[in-house]
């Protein structure tokens, strides 16, 4: 797949950055405003998906590769688990062990922003990976056996 027309590519180039930035904002301000790690992660995944849709399969194979999505997925999940396990520092599993700080500040609410970040990375990478696997590589007709229809997800 070659991707879409030049106009689409140009617009995507302009817009995708903003979408990703917006996703990052939603993730980081999750404890203050509506949104949060999951919502922001989906927006991140959407932004990346837009890039892949516009620039085509080759872009997904060479630049925004599947391996990165897999690594991000695992790392996000492990980071969240780490936050949970570090709770033992504060007494029990999942203790919010960081200082709460002043309500309404960016750095407040203890571990919540960290958890949000972890979930944002996890969800963004994970859903992007699945999206690419479902919607980009698998868009062939019945019994499609042509090369490149499947990214081999596992070695």
């Amino acid at each position, binding site marked *: 797949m070659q991707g879409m027309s030049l106009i689409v590519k140009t617009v995507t180039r302009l817009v995708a950055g903003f979408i990703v930035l917006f996703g990052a904002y939603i993730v980081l301000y999750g404890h203050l*405003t*509506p949104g*949060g790690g*999951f919502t922001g992660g*989906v927006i991140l995944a959407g932004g990346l998906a837009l890039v892949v849709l516009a620039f085509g399969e080759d872009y997904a194979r060479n630049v925004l590769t599947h391996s990165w999505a897999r690594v991000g997925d695992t790392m996000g999940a492990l980071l969240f688990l780490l936050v949970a396990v570090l709770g033992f520092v504060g007494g029990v599993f999942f203790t919010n062990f960081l200082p709460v700080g*002043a*309500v*309404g500040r960016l750095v407040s609410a203890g571990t919540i922003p960290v958890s949000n970040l972890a979930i944002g990375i996890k969800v963004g990478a994970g*859903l992007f990976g*699945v999206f690419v*696997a*479902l919607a980009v590589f*698998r868009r062939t007709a*019945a*019994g*499609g056996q042509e090369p490149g229809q499947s990214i081999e997800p596992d070695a």
Partner: protein
Amino acid sequence: MTLAMLPFILAFLLLVVGLYAIVAKRNLIKIIVGILVLDYAANLLLVLMGYRTPPAGGAPVAPILTGGAHEADALAATAVDPIPQALVLTSIVIGLSVTALVVALAIRLYEKYGTFDTNLMRNLKG
């Protein structure tokens, strides 16, 4: 029957409609649609049950502190119940996950059979 039960009943009917699609339809896409509708209905029911009528004439109050910590008491007296919202957020994610998996299955089945029609599949006829 009070009017105040009507939202619950409508949400529940939506659930039944989703169930109907799952049981009666013989097309994978329709079944996926049924699953989505089922999810929406269950989530809606939960959120409807957490809603608190705002004080006369006001708008519903979201459980988010916008003005600073000193407004916490006022918020506590008017805001809607935050627990169902947290549960539903989790539930939406679960719904999305299930959808991703079922779409993957549907795609694979399409590759095997060249159709989404379950009548043409071996084991799903019954």
